[in-house]
Every structure is written in structure tokens, then in C-alpha cells.
């Protein structure tokens, strides 16, 4: 949906601007929108961390800056970080020292490219979305390793080594936990996994079978470990290693690391929301009950339903992050040997057994034991159909010039099967027809 919408916008702009500039602007707008999540999200989560940790510790947290809840504290923090002096240790490897925070940030940001925020609202609709997110999140460890190494400080190096061992080890049970919803849905496409859980909250994969329920908790543990949040935060162990791998970083470089960390927290929470909690489908299908999702409803109501879904997903992601913050300030920190024991002796075997149980359950109880699922597993919904082959904007172009490069068209054909609403396809064609100046309404 976002891809067709962005092509339509680019074609619209191409009436006044050169075509290449129009596509560049549309791409930049999408990336800037996505950059809001690490930037704004990180500062918001920093504020939330201070307030939540304060309340857990029976104090108030920031209350003075900006009035009632100290909400402008996040702005003050941002300005403070931008104003700090840019120091670098003398022995540090200059190139790697400067580059490390941006590698972490890039890995965290790139994973947002494949995370859908609503039905079809995804920057790149990959049919291997889950795999891509896991692969890219695993690249964040490079920033940490290089930061620890290039800082020429033993505290940093120890922190980096521990962190790399931890993240790489926890990728194994994390992958196994993620495979269970993928197996239940039958696809790695995150949009389809979210759509499979449409309806009331008992359609969520969390309540699919007891094995998936347990797998969610194992996933959450492994996800907390892979983003280095307490109790697995010995890479940053404040009381032991000064600040671990980012000891020598201050100001904006530290902020880049923290944006990467909070961005990753949001990504794994959002991924958990889509895989286990129905994604953009709320517990009560309000948009469906209001008739907004009917194929013949007005396109604006479709869009409004999608917007409600986006709020659902963001709320679930924020709840996941809040839960991580809550766990951080409740549990003590684990030692590195305890971290590895948890991974190898507990998380991985539990994940493997639960995977077997979920596979057996799906095989022998396809309709659910109590039979209260509203849709059978793996079935394509009745209003899903393949997208039209060519971008609709290029079909009725009067000038006849190719408006989309062939490889891009082919990619969209391959990757975009499964948009659920029939009316959406006709909506795109009608808007594109208006755009290119053909005979008006449809």
C-alpha cells in the first residue's frame, strides 16, 4: 500500500519536477518519516525510563522541566547532548571510533524498513520480512565490538567482548522462537502474519496453543538479551565497567548508541506485537465492527482503519518497551556465566521443545482444540487477492513513457501478493487516473 501510494505520489510530483527528482523526494520523505522513530522514540523512552524507574524506586523523577510531568526534560537532555565536547582518546583508532555509533544506528534503523505499521503500511514489503529483521538486528553488534575495540580502553574492550558473545549466542533461541509464529502462519511475510490474526483477541497467536504462549516469554527473554537490556546489560554494566563499550563516548555519539538501543527495543517489541499479539489488530475489531474494512467502504475509511491499526501497533510496541524498562529496574544484573547458562541451558532447550509442541499442535488440531477460531489456520482470507501486475500509474499514461523501471515492477509483482482489500486496488487506479489527467471520476 505504501509502495503503490509512494509511486502515485512520485508520478504526481513528476508533472512538475524531473522524474528522478520526484522519486528521490518521495524516498527521502519516507526515510525521514521512519527516522522519527529512533529520534523521537529514543528521547521519549529516555524520559519514560526516568519516570518509570523513579516510580519503581518510590520517588518522582523529573517534574520541573516543562510543567506537569517534566516532559520537556527530554528536550533538555537532547540539547545537553548536542552541546557536549567531542572528545576522542588519543590512542583510539580514529576511523573505527567515529564510525562505530553510526553502524549501530544504521542496523537498528534498517530493521525498521521491513516492520509493518499497519496492513500494507510498510516501507519495503518483503516476503521474508521476519528473516530480514533478524538478520539486520544481528548487525548491531558490530558497532559495539568496534566501539569497544577502537576506544583503546580495557573497560570498553571487556564490555564489547561480553556483549558480542551475548548477542551472538542469543540469536539462536531468538530465531527458534520466531520460527513458531512463522510456522503457524505459513509465511515469513509480516503483513500476512498480522492479517492472519485479524478479528477478536483470541485469534492472536499468543492464545493459539500453550506452546506458543510459553514461546512468547522465551522470545521476550531472548529479545531483552539481544538488545542488551537488564538483566542482561553487563555490556554497559554501570557499576562494574564504568560504562562498558561506550565509556569513551559522549555527546552525540553516545546519543547515537542510545537511539540504536531504544530503537532496537521498539523493533523487537513491535516484532513481538506482530508475531504474537495480532500486530495492528486490536483486541476488539472496532474498525471491522464499524464496517470500515468492508470492500465497498469509502477509501478514506480504509485509511482510517489502517491508522487505528498503526496506533494499535505503536501502543503495543511502547507497552513492550515499558515492560522492558520495568524488568530492568526490578531484577538484578546477571553475570556473564549466568547469561550464557540461561541461553544455552534454558532458553534454547525450552524453545526447541516448545517448537516441537507447537508443530504437533498445528498438525493434529488445525481448527483449534476448542474450535473458537474464526478462520482456519493458513487459509487465505476471502477478500485477499494478488495485486495488479503493473503499477496502475504507468498503465494509462498518455505520453507512453515508462514510468517505473522494469526491475522495480518485477520486484513489486513478486513481493506484493496479498493486499486484502479489493477496493484498494481500484482506489489506486482511480487516483492514478485522476493524477495523469484521464477522464475524471470512476
Amino acid at each position, binding site marked *: 500500500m505504501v509502495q503503490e501510494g509512494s509511486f502515485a505520489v512520485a508520478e504526481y510530483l*513528476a508533472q512538475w519536477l*524531473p*522524474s*528522478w527528482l520526484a*522519486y*528521490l523526494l518521495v524516498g527521502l520523505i519516507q526515510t525521514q518519516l521512519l527516522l522519527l522513530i529512533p529520534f523521537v522514540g529514543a528521547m521519549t523512552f529516555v524520559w519514560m525510563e526516568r519516570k518509570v524507574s523513579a516510580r519503581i524506586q518510590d520517588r518522582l523523577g523529573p517534574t520541573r522541566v516543562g510543567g506537569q510531568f517534566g516532559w520537556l526534560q527530554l528536550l533538555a537532555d537532547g540539547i545537553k547532548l548536542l552541546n557536549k565536547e567531542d572528545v576522542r582518546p588519543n*590512542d583510539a*583508532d580514529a*576511523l*573505527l571510533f567515529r564510525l562505530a555509533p553510526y553502524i549501530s544506528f544504521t542496523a537498528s534503523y534498517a530493521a525498521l524498513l521491513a516492520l509493518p505499521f499497519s496492513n500494507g503500511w510498510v516501507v519495503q514489503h*518483503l*516476503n*521474508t520480512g521476519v*528473516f*530480514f529483521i*533478524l*538478520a*539486520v538486528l*544481528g*548487525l548491531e*553488534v*558490530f558497532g559495539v*565490538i*568496534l566501539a569497544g*575495540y577502537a576506544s*583503546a580502553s580495557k573497560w570498553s*574492550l571487556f564490555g564489547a*567482548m561480553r556483549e*558480542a558473545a551475548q548477542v*551472538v549466542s542469543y*540469536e539462536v533461541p531468538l530465531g527458534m522462537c520466531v520460527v513458531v509464529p512463522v510456522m503457524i502462519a505459513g509465511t515469513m511475510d509480516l503483513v500476512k502474519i498480522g492479517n492472519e490474526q485479524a478479528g477478536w483477541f483470541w485469534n492472536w497467536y499468543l492464545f493459539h496453543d500453550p506452546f506458543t504462549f510459553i514461546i512468547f516469554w522465551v522470545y521476550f527473554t531472548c529479545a531483552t538479551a539481544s538488545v542488551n537490556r537488564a538483566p542482561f546489560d553487563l555490556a554497559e554494566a554501570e557499576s562494574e565497567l564504568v560504562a562498558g563499550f561506550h565509556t569513551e563516548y559522549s555527546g552525540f555519539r553516545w546519543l547515537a548508541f542510545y537511539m540504536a538501543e531504544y530503537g532496537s527495543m521498539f523493533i523487537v517489541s513491535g516484532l513481538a506485537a506482530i508475531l504474537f499479539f495480532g500486530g495492528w489488530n486490536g483486541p476488539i475489531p472496532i474498525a471491522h465492527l464499524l464496517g470500515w474494512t468492508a470492500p465497498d467502504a469509502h477509501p478514506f475509511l480504509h485509511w482510517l482503519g489502517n491508522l487505528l491499526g498503526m496506533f494499535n501497533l505503536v501502543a503495543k510496541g511502547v507497552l513492550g518497551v515499558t515492560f522492558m524498562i520495568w524488568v530492568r529496574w526490578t531484577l538484578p544484573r546477571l553475570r556473564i556465566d549466568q547469561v550464557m547458562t540461561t541461553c544455552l541451558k534454558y532458553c534454547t532447550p525450552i524453545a526447541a521443545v516448545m517448537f516441537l509442541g507447537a508443530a504437533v499442535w498445528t498438525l493434529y488440531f488445525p481448527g483449534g482444540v476448542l474450535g473458537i477460531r474464526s478462520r482456519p489456520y493458513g487459509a487465505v482470507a476471502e477478500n485477499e487477492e494478488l495485486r495488479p501486475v503493473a503499477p496502475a500509474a504507468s498503465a494509462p499514461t498518455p505520453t507512453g*513513457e515508462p514510468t517505473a*523501471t522494469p*526491475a*522495480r515492477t*518485477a*520486484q513489486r509483482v*513478486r*513481493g506484493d501478493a496479498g493486499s486484502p482489500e479489493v477496493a484498494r486496488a481500484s482506489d489506486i487506479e482511480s487516483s492514478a487516473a485522476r493524477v495523469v489527467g484521464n477522464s475524471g471520476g470512476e
Partner: protein
Amino acid sequence: MDEVINWQSFFFLLFAAVACVFAVAVVVTSNVVRMAFYLILSLGATAGLFFLAGADFVAAMQLMIYVGGTLVLLIFGVMLTAQSPFISLKTHSGEWILAAILGGSLLAVLIQTAIGVPDWTLPAPVAAAPAEAPEADTAGTGRVPAQLV
């Protein structure tokens, strides 16, 4: 409204340039950790090339296996086995010449092969096509090619 920049070609050239430049940098640099880092960038650019070709799964696998697995292992090994913080590997000039001969001959063979595959080249100009087209097109299909209509 002509295509000043074809973004498909632009990104292909960008990723290809990054992959090639950093692969050369791996060979040329003398700092071991930087070598591993440049290899990360080179393999990441290769994954970008896979994405451009529409092979999402292969590209994600490249990122996960090579960059996320193999190179993490490599960097670990490099960091833990290096004796001093910035161990340096100097290549002697004799080794340069031998490597240039071997690598250059392999490069020449690969380029010649890549150019010589007929399916990988652009189609011949239209003026030359009708000479072969009628026999090829109408051989088994029964369709009349456009030039004869």
C-alpha cells in the same frame, strides 16, 4: 522530463563501487582490524546488490550468515589473537608482484568470460535482428513476425 538519473543504475553503481573499493582496501591496508571491517562493508554492499536484483531472501541470508556470523567470528579472532593493539601486516613488494600477476590473470579470465556469455549482453540492434528473427520466430510457433506483416 527525461531520466537524468536512473536510480536503479545509480544504486547498482554505488553498491558495486563500494564492494570493489572496500575489497581492494582489504588487500591494501595493513591494520588487521580495519581489514575485517572493510570486509564487512564489502559483503554488506554485496547484500545490497542482491536486494537490487530482487533476491530478498538471498540478501538477508548474506547479511545473516556472512556479515552477522562469519565476520563476527573473524573480528573476534582478529581481536583476541592480535598481540598488540594495532598489529600491522606489511606486504613485501615481491608478494605484491606475485599477487598482482595471479589476481590480474584471474580478473582477466573472469571479465572475458562474463563479456563472452551471449545471454548476458544487450540484444543486438534492431537493424541486424530481422535477418535472424523470421527463422527463429516462426520456426515452431506459427506466428508471423511484425516485419513481415
